């Protein structure tokens, strides 16, 4: 009798526990929900390349997934700006006082020598529209993390496969791996620090390594972070370039 009670209890408890497990689509939607409507901040980008260290200070404005502006103040790009609006992007050269339209293929170039591309700098999350997800078996090294595999819906997506580790308790991203269409590891990103502002869990420090660049890593730290505050319309206009 006692044996039956224990078995029934085990089945019931297991059922309750199982029902708390998140599905892949729930996790994708959860990560997407952390994307604020607007974000403005200052990014300190430290690029380590072997024994050399380069720094960039970038002011950032983002509105949804379609509008992004970066203003650079590092020595090599002082006054340069990068703006992306939907599928169009432009680079403003402060030296030349010229606006240079960027073709889509150029967005995959390294952004100012960092381990990130222009595309990655500007992209929002919107994982659900771009990827289909599957929950992978738990990684024994990270038993407290969901392992979510994402496969691109379109062949044109520059990252065809992503694997994201998500903390089971906090439900935030811990680290991610990006893969090329051929299956080779492209990039590893580890989120070192994050903040929770009104339920939006936003990374404030991360390190990313491009596996094609040996000995190279880029650490990005965000400060003066403001989210969901109206951004002046003139920020995302051509007149901003001449400012």
């Amino acid at each position, binding site marked *: 009798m006692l044996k039956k009670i224990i078995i029934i209890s085990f089945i019931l408890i297991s059922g309750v526990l199982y029902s708390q497990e998140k599905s892949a689509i729930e996790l994708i939607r959860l990560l997407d929900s952390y994307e604020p409507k607007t974000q403005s901040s200052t990014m300190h980008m430290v690029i380590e390349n072997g024994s050399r*260290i380069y720094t960039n200070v970038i002011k950032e404005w983002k509105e949804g997934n379609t509008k992004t502006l970066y203003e650079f103040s590092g020595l090599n790009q002082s006054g340069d700006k990068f703006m992306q609006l939907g599928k169009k992007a432009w680079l403003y050269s402060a030296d030349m006082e010229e606006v240079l339209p960027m073709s889509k293929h150029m967005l995959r170039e390294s952004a100012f020598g960092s381990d990130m591309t222009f595309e990655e700098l500007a992209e929002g999350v919107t994982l659900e529209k771009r990827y289909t997800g599957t929950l992978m078996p738990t990684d024994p090294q990270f038993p407290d993390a969901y392992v979510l595999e994402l496969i691109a819906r379109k062949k044109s997506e520059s990252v065809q496969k992503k694997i994201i580790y998500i903390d089971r308790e906090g439900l935030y991203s811990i680290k991610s791996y990006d893969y090329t269409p051929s299956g080779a590891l492209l990039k590893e990103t580890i989120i070192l620090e994050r903040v929770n502002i009104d339920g939006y869990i936003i990374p404030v420090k991360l390190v990313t390594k491009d596996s094609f660049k040996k000995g190279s890593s880029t650490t990005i730290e965000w400060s003066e972070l403001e989210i969901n505050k109206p951004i002046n319309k003139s920020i995302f206009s*051509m007149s901003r370039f001449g400012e």
Partner: protein
Amino acid sequence: MFRYCILIIVIVGANYLFSETGYKFRGFVESTGRLNLSLDNTDPNSINREFNQGFFTLSNQYIKIKPESGMTIVASINQTILSGVSTEEYERIQDSSPGFYNVYDYYILGLDIERLYFNYRINRVKVALGLQRLSRGFNFAFTPFDFLGNEGKLSLVTEYETTDFSSLALYFIPSEDPMEKEIWSSTSGILYKLYGGFVDFQAQYNLFFPKVYDGDFNHLLGVAFKGDFIVGLSSEITYRLNEECLDLSIGLDYTFYFDKELHIMCEYFFNGAGLSSGSDWQLGSTELYLFRHYFYGSLDLTVTDDLNMKLSGIYSPETLSGIGMYECNVRVSDSSTFTCEINVPMDKNAWDIDDIDIKDIGEYGPLRVGDELELSFIYKIRY
């Protein structure tokens, strides 16, 4: 020189005294050493080879002051130090602009205000007056639409932003002769820019005043666009009404990604005013483009974040000549780069110039350019 120092001190000092909403100051120093295997082509029947050297240092200070909301003052000042083969520019303009350079024992010092203008914005209207760049167009090597070039032009520009991504500018550029008091020889025009549509688009109309009172006005119409059609496609077209002359350039570019980045670009130029035959031209002509058709191509390989190599060339099919260029850029530190450049002018008789007939000299060949080979080492540091 003393006056320039005073000007720099006054501008920098004005930052601190009058700037209410901030200022930006930046600059660079670029030092170039040149080795040059040149040809003395004054007599094509007796060519002498010379092995030359030269130094060229360019120092730039750029200052942008915002004394009050809506107002901006921009000043960009260049100082150049020249010696050896780098003094060719001095030799070219010393008669017309004697005050531009000062000659010292070991070098020639050049002083130049590259830009000096103020800009005032009221809502969507912007007025800019002074020495400023009026750059336009999208192409890299052949830019008929950007006929004013990158140099600062003394001008008045009034720009109205029709939307957040389009603008209409009216401008007036006085004669290039600073002593000219009358309105003749001036240029005025309208430039429309549109960003963010199906393609980025620009259109312009220019009215060239005659050089004398009873001369003819000239007109230039032009359009330019850049679009994204798997590869980047750009084009610039201009038409001069009086000369009935059409200029056209078309460019394509694409980036390949493997463990490195390879950016490929090519451009074609139809020069309407150019000669159609390769036999009827003057060796001493200073025109940049003498013939009808030109091609440009480049392969730009980013090997690592610190190392970039570029192979490029310009080719004139009418004279079967061209210039091959190799460039290697190394990022030395956060603020400095080292560049090595090799320029090789070539034509169909490139390896047999001693017995060349004057009819066979290529437009970009060693005998016209005056060099067989030029090697440059450039160190640039920003601050």
